[in-house]
């Protein structure tokens, strides 16, 4: 499988990465090189094989259902580019 330029733009949009017009052709070539490299996986017979979900399967140990952290709003927002009263702020999303 290979991608065309419209697909490159669609992927960039899904990934929320702005791609300039002059970058599209280069990205298309790079993505197609990678997709052609992974093509060999089509040779493998995977009938009846379960996809891996955990590389070291072990029962999950649930933690105790208690509040063990919190009250640190200043620390949580300390690195944000824009905040107001311990809230993150973003450009307006609703009119």
């Amino acid at each position, binding site marked *: 499988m290979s991608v065309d330029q419209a697909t490159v733009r669609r992927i960039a949009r899904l990934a929320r990465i702005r791609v300039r017009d002059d970058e599209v052709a280069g990205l298309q070539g*790079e*993505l197609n090189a990678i997709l052609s490299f992974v093509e060999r996986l089509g040779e493998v017979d995977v009938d009846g094989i379960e996809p891996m979900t955990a590389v*070291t399967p072990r029962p*999950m140990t649930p933690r105790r259902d208690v509040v063990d952290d919190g009250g640190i709003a200043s620390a949580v927002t300390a*690195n944000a*580019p824009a905040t107001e009263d311990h809230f993150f702020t*973003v450009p307006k999303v609703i009119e």
Partner: protein
Amino acid sequence: MSDLTALSLAAARDGLRAKRFSALELNEASITAVAAAKPLNCFITETPDHARRAARVADERLGRGEARPLEGIPLGIKDLYCTLGVQTTAASRILQGFEPPYESTVSANLWRDGATMLGKLNLDEFAMGSSNETSFFGPVVSPWRRREGDELSEAAIVPGGSSGGSAAAVAARLCFGATATDTGGSIRQPAAFTGTVGIKPTYGRCSRWGIVAFASSLDQAGPIARDVRDCAILLRSMAGHDPKDTTSVDLPVPDYEAAVGASMKGRVIGIPSEYRMDGMSAEVEALWERGIAWMRDAGADIREISLPHTRYALAAYYIVAPAEASSNLARYDGVRYGLRVPARDVVDMYEETRAAGFGREVRRRIMVGTYVLSAGYYDAYYVRAQKIRTLIKRDFENAFAAGVDAILTPATPTAAFAAGEKGSGDPIEMYLNDVFTVTVNMAGLPGIAVPAGVSANGLPLGLQLIGRAFDEATLFTAAAAIEAAAPKVELPARWW
């Protein structure tokens, strides 16, 4: 005291306890070495005051006879580990200026055991790369130089990646050991390129909590150091169960140092025929043969084995790792931390921020990951890759079930190369560096790279040993046997 930096970690530890020098003297020697090594660009942030503060505490404890396992030992921390109040960037513009309000579990374990921090080490951006050329803070230069004719060339050699700053700093004797991380070979390949020892532990052995995530099902923390014993000492402190990482495993951490020097008699070493692949240099193949002979001389039984799905591991990795990366890196949205590029509306803000904040390799991998997870392609790419991952793991399980204790392979297909030499046109050329290491991440197993010789042009070459899950101890034993048998790989003299 100028040669304190040349000591091994174990020798520095023993010297401190014997009061031959103080922790402050040891740390000042390292701080001076770091300050004088700017041309290597190993550090993104230097923290000499942190080291001095911890060294004073260490001297008090040493004076009272209450030394902890790493008391006063200066280390470098890969800038993927969050460090409380100290800038943590993942070598990305998008995290420039980020000062975590918390400490990663693994680095906290090292401070608990008395180590000191010299600074934050450079890496490939978000640990994506095999040459440390993708860092926003500039490439790392290896202390190694290659011979051309009778002379050492001045061409900058790459230290490997992604833990290139860790490997170069250890090889240049700027620190006694360093933390690193390995998603597809990022500890073992740079260790092999710099004549150092690096171990990727079993998935779950070290906590991932507080380490910037790349591909969560593959990422694992581990040390790089100048010899096998030093690596064993560091891993014992780094490892252990952490309730904050649900994939970290609640198993006792053995005294790995005790495994160094143990007998190889009767241990079975597997040699996988599928690792004799195209593109392997003749000298790497010869090195592998010597490694087999050293193992046999040490008393091991050598057995040919087959890992039939090896040839698919790298391709499956380049689906699974970008897929996980595209999810993990969705958090960099210009809202909670790091860079924000202002824009009219929130979607524009996301898109402009991520275009400006991520470098080219990271953007490319996020896009591959987004594509293979997108509607209509998920089964053909992602699910198929995860099925092949099951087969890769099964290959190893079969070998171990048949009695193999560890598997010996080359660490990399070639020695290190010069900056700018690979991957500029075709990304796959760079990805092939990880062809021998990536299988281990796909199967969650431990793997160690140990120096075993030098190439015709004078650069180090490494061998890799792969072990059973949670049997790092056997890897330390086997790697120490290779270290003892191989001609000593002398680290380069200072030119920087």
